[in-house]
């Protein structure tokens, strides 16, 4: 085998990491290049060609409205990835800030206020939160000034907020150890500001678990988006999304048109598996205790 590839595979922590990275890369490319690589318009109806089985013209077949399922799956990657990634970004911004502050001002009211609030929010499962909140505020688009935000933006901001408790806890746990390290004391003795120490010194030493957790949370966000869209509270038609595609296919589960549920379902599963493999590989790579391949509980 090509030595360059072999070295790359080793760097990615073995085959599973390499497979995960490849899947994530492929999905990301599909999402980015959707307008150019999708063979058909994902939303234009063609009732003459509805419910076509996969063939040379439509590799994944067509749905009940004659839309090309491959094209819809490619466009669906956009929504899924956007929700998955942006939610993690929002969650990281808020969660890391909260966790750092709680850990740095450990042993006081600030810490208790932040961490107990976090515990309270985290005591209700993510999916329940998402469905409840969207159910209450409704699925319409949001207008802010001249900008019109589709329902999925509401969803991703919401998921981002719901990620904050978990990410705050991860940050808090690691930062608590780092915040009492001698180098933090040394920085204070040098007259550095608290904020500079928190973000400049403590945070860089807490990054690896956050990177791992962030990667895994992208997968969870994709599942949540698909689930919420499946029950009609997420992405609204005609925007293609894997969750709505699955919802539309419910009527055809037992009537023989297997390609309707199988391909969006596969898209979700493969993407989620890809992010999980990548996250696991990153964990092995970034955790010095595991670098020998030995598991320490």
């Amino acid at each position, binding site marked *: 085998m090509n030595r360059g590839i072999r070295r790359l595979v080793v760097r990615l922590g073995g085959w599973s990491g390499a497979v995960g990275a490849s899947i994530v890369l492929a999905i990301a490319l599909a999402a980015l290049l959707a307008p150019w690589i999708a063979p058909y318009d994902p939303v234009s109806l063609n009732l003459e060609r509805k419910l076509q089985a996969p063939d040379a013209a439509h590799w994944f077949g067509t749905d009940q409205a004659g839309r090309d399922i491959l094209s819809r799956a490619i466009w669906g990657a956009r929504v899924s990835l956007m929700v998955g990634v942006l939610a993690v970004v929002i969650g990281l911004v808020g969660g890391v800030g909260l966790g750092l502050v709680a850990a740095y001002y450990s042993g006081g009211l600030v810490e208790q206020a932040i961490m107990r609030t976090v515990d309270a929010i985290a005591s209700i499962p993510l999916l329940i939160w998402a469905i409840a909140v969207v159910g209450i505020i409704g699925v319409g688009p949001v207008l802010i000034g001249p900008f019109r935000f589709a329902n999925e933006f509401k969803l991703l901001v919401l998921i981002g907020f719901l990620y904050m408790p978990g990410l705050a806890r991860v940050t808090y746990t690691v930062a608590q150890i780092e915040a009492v*390290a001698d180098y933090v*004391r*040394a920085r204070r*003795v040098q007259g550095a500001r608290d904020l*500079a120490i928190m973000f400049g010194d403590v945070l860089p030493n807490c990054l690896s678990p956050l990177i791992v957790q962030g990667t895994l949370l992208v997968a969870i966000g994709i599942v949540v988006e698909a689930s919420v869209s499946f029950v009609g509270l997420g992405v609204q038609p005609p925007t293609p999304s894997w969750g709505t595609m699955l919802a539309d296919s419910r009527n055809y589960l037992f009537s023989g048109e297997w390609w309707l549920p199988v391909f969006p379902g596969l898209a979700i599963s493969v993407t989620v598996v890809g992010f999980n493999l990548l996250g696991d590989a990153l964990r092995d790579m970034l955790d010095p205790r595991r670098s020998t391949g030995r598991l320490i509980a």
Partner: protein
Amino acid sequence: MNAPLLEIRDLRVGFPIADRMALAVRDLSLDVMPGEAVGLVGESGSGKSVTALAAMRLVAHPGRILGGSIRLGGDDILALDERALRKVRGRRMAMVFQDPQTSLNPAFTIGQQLLDTINAHRSLTPREARAEALEALAMVGIPAPERRLNSYPHEFSGGMRQRALIAMAIACRPQLLIADEPTTALDVTVQAQVIALLRRLARDLNLAVLFISHNLELVAELCDRVVVMYGGMAMEAASVEALFSAPKHPYTRLLRQCVPRLEGGQERLLSIDGAPPVLGQMPPGCPFAQRCPDALARCRSDEPPSRQLDGHSVACWVAT
């Protein structure tokens, strides 16, 4: 005699233990003159590190400074607000800690950390700041400083890290360096090098040093004056020569005999019977009374005040 650079008066630092404040430092007074090296000696738990942290006003929660005063060059450290305090820390007094393995941030290069320190207090152009950083590294005797600026802490040996930390401490030309057991985590040979370095820096930069150690020999090497602490109190303070040639306090005398000597004489190494008092269970009177061979009844009831005796300042009822 000119005014002291660091002047600690009747300092009391307490930690809450079982609903009351236990005193880790009891009415400690201490002066450091400009350019002078003062040793603060004591066993573990005698309050020497807490004293150092208090001077920086960095006593960790839940500990608190309960009383007394700390003045640096006439400024009341205990009255400064956070902002003013940041300007004092690192700029006018700097500190080096015991463990060089953990005192450097593993995520950044030595150069970045040095520059952080310099930029925190001085507005220099990047070029000037870099020159300062190089000079600081050169001053502590790190070879090839240009190359070492880009090294990470894990690429440094223990002695080199301690040198790098000292470089950071002196980068802003403080008047006072507090060194909290800076050699304890190092090899004996490296210890001697670090002591020699501190002595040279003190001379070249007219730097006052408050050197905290449990090692009397190192204190004798470096310091002009010594303060011996026990149970949070200053037991005896004197010049190095006076303290070593004619210790007045029974504790100091015993401590001197606990140091092994190469030139023989003693067959068995002496140790002081008993253990230091535990914080929160401090007996009344002199903290050393229970272990003191010369203790009188009075020693167990009344706290001895500090008094002058042949140039020593001694807190003892018995010492003559």
